[in-house]
């Protein structure tokens, strides 16, 4: 399983804060994003942003990183705390 989390605008647009997906062989951060963005207009809107960030297992990650079964992946906009 892959646990996928969404935060801030991304969460708000798709209306879901997390989902769980079957792990697929050679899944990457980018292929997961593309798959999710194809799930409908809201998903396309939420995950299509140029500024979208991705974290794998709570560490900021890049777009062509291979995932492993059990990973936690999060999609979110640039951070604005402080």
């Amino acid at each position, binding site marked *: 399983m892959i646990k996928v*989390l969404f*935060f*801030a*605008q991304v*969460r*708000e647009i798709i209306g879901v804060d997390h989902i769980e997906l079957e792990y697929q062989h050679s899944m990457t951060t980018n292929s997961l994003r593309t798959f999710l963005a194809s799930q409908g207009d809201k998903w396309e809107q939420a995950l299509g942003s140029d*500024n979208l960030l991705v*974290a794998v297992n*709570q*560490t*900021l990650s890049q777009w062509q990183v291979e995932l492993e079964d059990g990973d936690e992946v*999060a999609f*979110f*906009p*640039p*951070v*604005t*705390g*402080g």
Partner: protein
Amino acid sequence: MNRVQTQDFSVAEEYAKLADNPGCGAVVTFVGKVRDFGDNQGVTQMELEHYPGMTEAVLEQIEAEARQRWPLDEVIIIHRVGSLALTDQIVFIGVSSAHRKAAFAACEYLIDFLKTRAPFWKKEQTQAEAHWVDAKDSDEQAAAMWLEDK
């Protein structure tokens, strides 16, 4: 010593922890507050969201980086989440050191990287509307300066 919490913090209490050391010559603290203009004029309140787990990990990491760069005694980072009103305290960064230059530099380093790497998001509320705050280029630049510096 770092915390993410909904409740307010006391600058006096955190200052006392930072200063409680006979070798400590300098204590620098930073507090960020909700002000009446953010991206928009007339902000009355805001919601602060975060990514539990990752947030704490990032705060530990930027503290460890600061400790590698400068000789520090105590470091305390506190960030609030949830609903905050105008003039509420949002974030506390406190650093103590034998040396003032180290305390100033580390405190500013920590807030610069908290702003660009810790997964917090602000949604500002005005009388008219609520909207997510945009990330600022000036914050990215402030953090990038430290990397050139090294």
